[in-house]
């Protein structure tokens, strides 16, 4: 190797953290596949992905959580933007936002443990939506760490089934990403 006085730095700080990306996309068949395929092909790891229709029936909203440094995530956002069906992309990680996730947890129960499960749920503002002899279904809404905590607590009783939607987010105040989509 030829010694060089200063090595050129590579793109990105290497400082990895979780980023929240919101994308407004055309509500058409195959768009989810395009987004997922792009993420796979470009080696971006999606931690969670939530999709639903927006206020307008012709657009959908995707919330992606991606782990990476700032350049990595910016690259993901830029590549997303190149998809023709992607109308708007925003990294909202550092914005003032409300972030919520929804979970259903089926907890193993006995006659004896049932009251305790119910009280754990109540203490964490979760709701019991099904009460059986051998299992209790708890519904929880909150930021992902709150749900993590609840899941940990229920592990003691045994979790038979767990489903989480992944985060959905919305910016606080009157700003609207959907209104920013140019038409």
């Amino acid at each position, binding site marked *: 190797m030829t010694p*060089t006085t200063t090595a050129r730095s590579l793109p990105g700080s290497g400082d990895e953290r979780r980023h929240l990306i919101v994308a407004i996309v055309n509500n058409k068949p195959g768009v989810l596949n395009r987004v997922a395929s792009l993420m796979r092909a470009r080696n971006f790891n999606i931690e969670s992905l939530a999709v639903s229709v927006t206020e307008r029936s012709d657009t959908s909203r995707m919330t992606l959580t991606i782990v990476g440094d700032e350049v990595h995530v910016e690259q993901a956002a830029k590549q997303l933007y190149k998809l023709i069906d992607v109308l708007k992309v925003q990294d909202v990680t550092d914005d003032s936002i409300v972030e919520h996730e929804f979970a259903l947890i089926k907890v193993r129960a006995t006659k004896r443990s049932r009251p305790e499960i119910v009280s754990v749920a109540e203490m964490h503002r979760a709701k019991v939506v099904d009460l059986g002899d051998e299992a209790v279904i708890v519904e929880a809404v909150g930021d992902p760490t709150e749900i993590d905590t609840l899941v940990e607590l229920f592990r003691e009783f045994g979790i038979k089934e767990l489903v989480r939607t992944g985060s959905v987010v919305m910016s606080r105040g009157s700003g609207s990403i959907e209104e920013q989509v140019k038409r």
Partner: protein
Amino acid sequence: MTQAGHVPGAGSAAASASERARRDMLRDARVTARGGARPRIGADALCEAILLQGSDTIWGYPGGVILPLYDVLVDHPELRHILVRHEQAASHAADGYARASGKVGVCLGTSGPGATNLVTGIGTAMLDSVPVVFITGNVPNALIGKDAFQEIDITGITLPMTKHNYLVRTADEIPYAIAEAFHLARSGRPGPVHVDITKDALMGETAATHPSAAEIEAGLPGYKPKLDGHPRQIKLLAEAIAGAQRPVILAGHGVLIAGAERELLELARAAQIPITWTLLGIGVIDETDPLAYGYMGMHGWKHVNRAIQSADLLIGIGMRFDDRVTGNVRTYAPKAKIAHIDIDPAEIGKNVVADLPIVGDAKHVLDALLPLVTKVDPATRADYFAELATWRTESEGSSWHGSGGFRDGVLSADFVVDRIAAGSNFDANLTADVGQNQMWVARYGGFRRANSHLSSGGLGTMGFALPAAMGAAIATPDKVSWAIAGDGGFQMTLQELATIVQERIPVKIALMDNKKLGMIRQWQEIVYAGNYHSEQLAGPDYLKLCEAYGLPAWKVSKPEEVDAAVTAALAADGPALIWFEIAERQNVYPMMPAGKGLSDLIDKWGDDGEDVTEGATGPRVDPMDPTSGGAK
């Protein structure tokens, strides 16, 4: 050679006349067989849409579900369909047509294997940002997803390698889909667009009209290519240029796509900056211009890479700092600030950190930059240019440059490329294949004209040269089109000899036969300690092969025979081939082993002779390990 009565895409005037007669006869026969008028169907709308977009040539191959289109082609005589021998060749021909002309290429295949055979060509066009619309037929709507005969999920396959793709199920959708596909293919950063059309859609009756360009743009709210660079960034670039002592321009394909060659030259002249180019940037400037410094990168000129390594400002325009350009990024141009102009925001900051990013079209940005550039008196750069000139003399005169033409009477490849280019007055389209021949063409083609160099740079597709040259020959009938291929790449698509003979496409083929996979052999010699494997390549007697196909051919194995053969091939009416038996062990130098930097070029190995014995000794260089020894 364009003249009145010329049939689009027919080539020469003589070909045009017989092509017209052939088409008239075919049309009369078809109309009679069909018994007169018929309703307008999806396939008609498809032909109309292609013609409305200004394309007159389709490269294709028929098959079951695409037959409804072939049934109506005769009713659209302005559209020339060229029947290839393999769909992959159609994909490269449409690509070559687009590269040489700047127009959108059109390629057609049937469902299933017809469509999968296009995949290599789609990837080639994608990596090199070439505007091609790929059209495939698919099985009837009711059979989609049923694993029907010749059914494959082709839109699923092409999704990650197209700019966009469509599955069209009704005839009414066809005009809009085709118009949008053309718009996407050629605007912004160009690229391939794939339209998959079911048999129902091709056969269905339709009255759908063709949308206007404004309607198409209005229908694409998520697609707004940014053409103009940010004024503040452009101003900063002008200041950076004014402050630079050793600036270097790195010009890429984006300059050619934008048609910004003149603006590039104006910038270079105003601020006295040498222009270097990437593989796909070849042709951005006449190579004989005093400001044209040369081809950069892994097999680029040593003086060019030296200039880049010593620069204090790099101005990348329409290029993407790919690994073949930078080598090890850590050691790339250690003293330089990097300004990066590209129309694709995702390219900026992807491979290198840009100190001065500008998102925009090369022509738009340069137009805005030029009035802000401080004129530099050439005298103030005298020392810089004198040093560059010294480096250039050293580099061009060193042992690996084959300017002597041959050693011991053996034919060297670079000499052949030089004679072909000179024999065609440095005005021909030179289409390269992939491997050593590609680098020889890039280094010794002596290009003077934009879009006259065609090469599969990004994907590196062997077999590209002959079919892409067919496309170039049809796209620019007033230019000579050479396919310069190694014996490896040529044997991948040589079935197209039948196409150029049948369709009278005047491609001149230079077969660079070293009876080897030369670049494989070179790597095995240098990087894998002479552990040769699968690099010996037998081929047929190419004179007999050409005779069988009905193609004039010459065999050349001595340097003194080269010029006469080139003249004879050029004089031949229509396609011709020259079989050059070149040195079997000539390497391409310099060479930057993978993982190394631009300062780590190898320019000699072993005794560096054509007859270097196999198993040449030397320290082993692991291509994946930058710390392994031997390169320097």
